[in-house]
């Protein structure tokens, strides 16, 4: 125990390879005994250069690429991109297409939240809940596969509409699936709010006040669990969220338990809105025509991903390829909340606090240049390229 002789800090580093993290990130927790005294995060292990990649593909090809930014919330990425391009081209998608986009987005939210429920339970050592919630998640995965043909990258969107339609049989399957999932979700709600051992791991752990959440810019269920009533679906409705609105779910506690409760209540909202969509979806066309070259201009497109606000910036120079696409995913906004709430908790709470924001590593990774001194400098494209060659040599 060499580190105990010297009074230096005992640092437990988690990641980039660690059983708690299925995706690579690096966290260093300074601990005294079991109590965490400092926390730092380092990202950038799965930076894929996709934003740069979009600049050498056409607008149509990019739809395929943007769908693959994230493996869990693939549809919202494609939807955000498609919406931005449609805004650039000044094209309105038909109402049925908008409704189907919302339907798939909500199904995706169910799958993402159930996945998160299992992962978070596993981080807390509650493998039974993990296994059961993932078993029930298969219901929604099967529904997505039946509707779109794919379990993960649904590729339901095209520029100017959607590819797939919902027929009678699929509607019936959807309603049946929602009934089953609602029953199961009610059970999970009871588990996370009544199970004593589980509450011991979630109640008053990682508490974030509304002020702190606002200051750190937390988005999505993480922010809403701290009482920040912000949801793009309500504040800036897109797709068919005007005709088929959802309610904002918030909680005041701000701890891990509240994050569980908020996400599960959002599932109820999703079930409700999916039933409405299936019953009252407008009939009609699925696509409209859209030009191949986009007029010059800049647009911002925002959607509510399962993890929070997803932000797209698109800039066109009038050609068939974009000038610049900027993606800001919700996980990037929420990292700060981990580092702010970690200190003072036990090391054993760290995996659950980490999982509490539902982090998604690959979609938020970007190149970070940390300047330890004061020599701030600008890197040219040539410098970056040289750095890349040196780094991977």
């Amino acid at each position, binding site marked *: *125990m*060499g580190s105990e002789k010297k009074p230096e800090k*005992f*640092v*437990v*580093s988690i990641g980039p390879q*660690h*059983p*708690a993290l299925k995706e690579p990130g690096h966290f260093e927790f300074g*601990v005294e*005994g*079991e109590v965490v005294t400092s926390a730092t995060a380092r990202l950038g292990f799965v930076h894929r250069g996709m934003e740069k990649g979009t600049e050498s593909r056409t607008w149509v090809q990019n739809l395929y690429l943007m769908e693959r930014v994230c493996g869990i919330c693939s549809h919202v990425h494609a939807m955000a991109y498609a919406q931005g391009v449609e805004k650039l081209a000044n094209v309105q998608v038909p109402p049925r297409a908008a409704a189907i986009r919302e339907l798939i987005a909500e199904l995706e939210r169910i799958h993402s939240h159930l996945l998160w429920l299992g992962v978070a*339970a*596993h*981080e*807390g*050592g*509650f*493998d*039974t*809940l*993990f*296994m*059961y919630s993932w*078993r029930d998640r298969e219901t929604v995965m099967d529904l997505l596969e039946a509707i779109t043909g794919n379990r993960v990258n649904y590729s339901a969107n095209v520029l100017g509409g959607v590819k797939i339609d919902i027929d009678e049989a699929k509607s019936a399957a959807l309603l049946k699936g929602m009934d089953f999932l609602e029953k199961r979700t009610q059970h999970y709600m009871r588990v996370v709010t009544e*199970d004593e*051992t*589980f509450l*011991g*791991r979630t109640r008053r752990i990682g508490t974030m006040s509304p002020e702190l959440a606002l200051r750190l810019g937390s988005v999505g269920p993480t922010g809403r669990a701290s009482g920040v009533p912000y949801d793009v679906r309500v504040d800036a409705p897109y797709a068919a969220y005007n005709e088929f609105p959802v309610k904002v779910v918030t909680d005041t506690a701000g701890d891990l338990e509240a994050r569980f409760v908020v996400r599960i209540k959002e599932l109820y909202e999703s079930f409700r809105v999916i039933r409405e969509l299936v019953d009252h979806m407008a009939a009609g066309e699925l696509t409209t025509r859209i030009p191949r070259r986009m007029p010059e201009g800049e647009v911002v497109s925002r959607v509510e991903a399962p993890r929070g606000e997803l932000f797209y910036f698109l800039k066109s120079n009038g050609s068939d390829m974009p000038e610049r696409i900027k993606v800001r995913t919700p996980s990037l906004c929420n990292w700060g909340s981990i580092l702010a709430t970690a200190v003072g908790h*036990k*090391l*054993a*709470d*760290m*995996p659950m606090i980490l999982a509490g924001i539902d982090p998604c590593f690959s979609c938020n990774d970007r190149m970070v240049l940390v300047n330890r001194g004061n020599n701030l400098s600008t890197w040219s494209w040539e410098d970056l390229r040289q750095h890349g060659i040196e780094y991977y040599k």
Partner: protein
Amino acid sequence: MNISINPIVSLLIFPGGLVLLLSGLAYEFVDRKLVARFQNRIGPRWFQPLADLIKLLAKEEIMPTGVVKGLFIFLPIVAVTAILTAALYVPMFGFKPAFSFSGDLVVTVYLLSLMTLCTGLAGANTEDRFSLMGATRALTQMFSYEAPFLLALLGPAIALGTWNIGQINSAAGHNLWFILAQPFGFIAAVIGLMGKLELPPFDAPEAETEIVAGALTEYSGRGLALFHLGRDIELVIGLTLISSFYLGGLGSPLDFLWKTLILLLVTAGLQSLFARLRIDQTVGLWWRVGSIVVLLQLLAIIIGKVVGPLIPFLARG
């Protein structure tokens, strides 16, 4: 069942060595399968624990830098040896203990905790942070459950007036089952066994999402295989001990089988019911609830022993 077995046979084959190893693997399989079924999984095939063991034994053992070599090699051996020795004083498979002397209960409990001690030392021996954290947690947990576990086993011993496991076993069969007479002791013993074996929800010392594999993170190959084997055998011995004390004694192999398997069913259920306890929660649970309940029960037993014989005397006036 009183069959006298040649000491060499009882040491190496039955009920000592080989059969004990295999039964450890069999019980690990049953445990894993039960937990898997409770969790809606398929679970392992029947030979999976044996296959794991053979595979680990065949693998290269990597010695990390900065360890004391002798300790690194010897700790797993000491752990398994201690567990195998403990089995000799316990009525394994319903047979009379191979060896016994008055007071072997204390020795057996001590030998059983040697396993945790070796795990803790093995973790402290390496420089890895996860191992160090795991070792700290394993030893902390040991200090929290050890006293209540011992007290829980002492309950029947004090009630029967002997500290010899074999005598307790045969006497328990003639009395009211101690699970009814001393229910709190039974609960403390079962939960203490789960803490000893670091089964969920008491698996904080090896919580994979926090500290990878805890104290054994740096172990691979033979050492890891031996530690796993030791834990499997400890499971069988622990189940045997508790069922012989609290479930009316083990008179025959059939008794052994159904009583230990029912106990295993209970522990498997408990394993899948709860979220993992933090180490501070474990310590709090044991010292705030466990020890006090067991101590109160012990007090009741002692008072009963003192007052009990007086009752007819007092009644006569």
